[in-house]
């Protein structure tokens, strides 16, 4: 009888402990993040960048260009309600584009322009060695973009439509040669006990 009285509290304690147990391990990079919400996940970024890279490579202005155009990045504006490291976003785009570009375009690192100018000046002053003077390349195209969303909440249900909009602009004429909006929609229903 005494043992039977102990069973329920012990069972409840075990259940509570099980609910709190965690785990650890490495997972593939495109695995869904464990936390279920409608916000940005690493998988979303990767998918968007892969699609965009394929679209850009197929552009006639790039595919049929006599010489691979040079592209400089302008900022990606976060106009959404999500926390987004826009620098990381741009770096991911650049990496993916370089991997998929097959030599179709070349990227300029304007973020490092000050360091580059300093190095050039030191070389020209003879203070450090040089393998030969080169021209500083101008940009043929600018890549810029914005991230927006529409977030709706109705009781326990939340819907989030993310929009990643990118465009290529001719750096000489300001003509928009390409623009595309990638959309992704997520929905969750929170558990009955959450608020």
């Amino acid at each position, binding site marked *: 009888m005494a043992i039977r009285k102990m069973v329920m509290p012990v069972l409840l304690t075990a259940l509570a402990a099980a*609910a709190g*147990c965690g785990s650890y391990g490495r997972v593939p990079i495109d695995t869904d993040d464990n936390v279920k919400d409608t916000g940005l996940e690493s998988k979303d970024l990767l998918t968007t960048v892969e699609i965009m890279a394929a679209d850009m490579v197929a552009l006639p202005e790039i595919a049929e260009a006599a010489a691979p155009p040079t592209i400089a990045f302008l900022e990606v504006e976060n*106009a959404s309600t999500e*926390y987004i490291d826009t620098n990381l976003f741009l770096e991911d785009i650049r990496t993916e584009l370089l991997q998929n570009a097959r030599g179709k375009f070349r990227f300029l690192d304007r973020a490092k322009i000050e360091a580059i100018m300093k190095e050039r000046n030191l070389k020209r002053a003879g203070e450090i060695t040089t393998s030969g003077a080169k021209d500083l390349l101008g940009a043929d195209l600018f890549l810029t973009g914005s991230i927006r*969303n529409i977030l709706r909440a109705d009781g326990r249900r939340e819907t989030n439509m993310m929009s990643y909009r990118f465009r290529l602009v001719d750096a000489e004429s300001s003509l928009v040669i390409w623009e595309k909006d990638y959309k992704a929609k997520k929905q969750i229903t929170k558990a009955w006990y959450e*608020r």
Partner: protein
Amino acid sequence: MLRLLVPAAMLLAGACAPSARDLGRQAFFRHDYTAAREHFEQSAQNGGKDYVLHRLELATVMFEQGDYEAAEAVLLKATKIMRGTSGELEGTVSLIAHESAKQFKGDPFEKAMANFYCGLIFYMKGDYGNARAGFMQARMADKAGSDEQFQDDFAIASYFAGRCSIKMHEYDNARVFFERARAAQPGNRYFAEEALDDNVIFVLQLGRSPVKTRTGPGGSLDDYSRGHYRETGANVWADDAMLGSSAPGVDLLHQAKTSSRTVKDTIQTAKGVVKEGLFAAAVMTDDSKTSLMLALAALLFPSGADTRQWDLLPGEVHVVSARLKPGRYTIRIDFFEENRLLQDYEQVWENVEVLDDADTLLVFRSGSGKRGGTMGVTQAGTGDTGAPAEPAEPVETDTPEPASTEQSAEPAAGETNPPSIVGTTDQED
């Protein structure tokens, strides 16, 4: 029997010894942030159901130390979990066990404050896109968890979302945010049009967080009461010129008490009624053995509300803004209890830099014996020490302007009720 006493005494001593979290809280409230951080870093190594709470406490200390990069990283992890859903299993467990068996995710006002701090950090960095995301998340967390008439009353988040929108050249969005802020806090002069050109914003965290207690049948529901603190407002000075008296941006007790009840509260109430019923049955039963069993069942029956809370939060957040020439200033903050100056609450901060190419956001926290110090440079920029742009009018220090504590429950005239779209940022170029 004696052989059992020693290990039993050791167990008892271990159970009574203060935890790393307790030590951290004690250090925090005596303003020893170095020690507090050490203890909270230790408690944060424990995962489990208090993962988020440990990180919120750690982030609070990091924020007070001015280590905003570290605080940002910890807060972003915490807010992601607070926003997400954990699934039905946890809820089922808390249904049959104590409510505190589930992962701590905070009440709506705690979620709002976590995002508000993220917004402040990004604002200090000049990252207005992410800052606005933080302030909008704060507004959404408050809205999602509030009774309908109290939605959209987290005024200070709306105010800062408006400032971010100006920086992003989204003037229509800015106008809407400022209207919402003014509707929620109509007496706050710093939300007015004339104050939006100010380049220095002081965010003043006053007092102690609301205190969460159990109420209802069997202590099954939670309720909040005012935390114990004296300060009701503050005056801010720059190089001995008065900049202004603080005005409230948000009252966290009001936010806590206007959270809506949900299904889980109904179930908790039912659990509480069952517990009290068992006690009543134990009293009314004639058979002593049955009475004892019923009483034991009542004692063991887990109906108690979850009283875990982020109690390092302030009680209120006030704001002061001003226009100052770029340069370095000595900032003095006087805190008041109604009209009475609290002498041992005065803070003096030296070497406070006002930038010439961005807003300067300064966040302070009240506390008895917290003297101030020399401000570290949190943003790039150089400048010679200069005088305030306009000499401030002298104000009687023993009769500060009373802070407005009105909360607007209704939208401003001409404005419709908040739509179901809680965060709309899509806008035609």
